[in-house]
């Protein structure tokens, strides 16, 4: 996002800093959780700092790099652009939910491994979550469609060829369809 200076009224001076925190429930990877945070805290920061789910990565913090992408009620969303309070009562899915409890990778993750689709892995969680949503809606995408979605993610070391190959492989695997929450629920924005 471009930076530019906006002229706006300065906020009113406060005598004391009020306690603005809110306590609310949400579901994270199927488990009910309760968090207490100020409303200015992003969902990305709550997932990482309050719930210890450091699989969600924070890169640019303004929606460009895609590393922080998670699913909210099955819909791919930038967690750095979502306030945590906005996830009240909603089901959040992070990269930690993809592999089985015994550590067995799911079809999409395995395809990334098969195709050397990651090196440092910083961008990988966001890409996996975007395509978990996308492949559930569109199980047999063309390469152009894959690249279109991938354009919402920045990878600075692996290069995109391996990632595209991995997603093509995953899309041809039967296990991938129905992977996203919204496939059962019908989707829709929050």
């Amino acid at each position, binding site marked *: 996002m*471009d930076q530019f200076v906006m002229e706006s009224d300065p*906020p009113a001076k406060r005598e004391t800093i009020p306690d603005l925190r809110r306590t609310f429930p949400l579901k994270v990877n199927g488990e009910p959780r309760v968090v207490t945070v100020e*409303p*200015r805290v992003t969902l990305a920061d709550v997932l990482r700092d309050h719930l210890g789910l450091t699989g969600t990565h924070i890169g640019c913090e303004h929606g460009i790099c895609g590393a922080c992408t998670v699913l909210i009620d099955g819909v791919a969303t930038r967690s750095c*652009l979502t306030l945590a*309070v906005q996830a009240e009562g909603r089901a959040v899915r992070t990269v930690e939910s993809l592999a089985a409890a015994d550590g067995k990778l799911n079809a999409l993750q395995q395809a990334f491994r098969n195709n050397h689709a990651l090196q440092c892995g910083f961008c990988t969680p966001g890409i996996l979550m975007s395509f978990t949503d996308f492949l559930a809606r569109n199980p047999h995408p063309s390469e152009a469609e894959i690249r279109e979605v991938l354009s*919402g993610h920045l990878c600075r070391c692996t290069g995109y060829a391996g990632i595209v190959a991995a997603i093509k492989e995953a899309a041809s695997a039967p296990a991938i369809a129905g992977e996203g929450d919204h496939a059962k629920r019908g989707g829709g924005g929050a």
Partner: protein
Amino acid sequence: MKVAPFSYHDPENLPKGLELLAGLEHARLLAGGQSLVPYLAFRMQRCDHLIDLNGVSALSGIHEQDGRLVIGAMTRQREIASSPLVSQHCPIAQDALHLIGHIATRTRGTLGGSLSNMDPSAELFGVSALHDATFHVQSVRGGRDIAVADWAETFMKPAIAADEMLTSVSWLPWPKGHGHAFLEFSKRHHDYAIVAAGALMTVDADRRINRAAIMVIGCGIAPTRLIGAEALVLGQRGSSELFAEAAHEVATLAAFPDLFAHQGYPRRFVSADYRRQLGLVLARRAMESAYAQSISIQKRH
């Protein structure tokens, strides 16, 4: 950076939201948050109160009413991009939506948020100009309609009062089979457009243009309808020469020289000449493409 402190309000219905907006000082409305949240995080903007409209379900939805397509301000860009009604009546909106952000931002980004933020590059404002939009705003004092041409007050600020909220937008549908094209140039795929152009066109049995709407964005604080170009092409058969002549209107737009001299605005490094040249080229190509499409559609009928 992290967002500065604010009080958070999440009204569950519109009257409550309007009441909060009227009663709170230094309040901002939160729609999709895909621009506002980073603005707040970079501290380019601040607010004491954030009124989150995501719980106001009455602000979402797409329906036909009195011959117009009415879209709620909180309707997500992704929903508009896949709506059969939009595809039928205003398909250029879907051409444009594919150029806006990424899938994971379109799932949150809203029509009303984009129009209220009023970035000079906003594609949906351009689409609204082509479809002769009416913007419906409400406040505790009542509601009113604003024509798309009157929406902009100044750089990134709509002509509405502090207690007013954009609640819906209506677009004038074009007939089935019209030609439509939306083209833009940006430095990176899906980045902000430097300049974009759009055209709608229909032709008669003799391939003469009998209706045209043409606009450019990035050439002013708001989209500019090329009224002269629209008049010039009427009754004519399309050709590269005709469309090049029509596009020349872009070069005459008065707002060009100092528009992007706003403090810190990054696209200022794009010179007026460069922007003008892009406008000329994109407007011509949009007309050519919309014309070719309207011809090929007519062949099939």
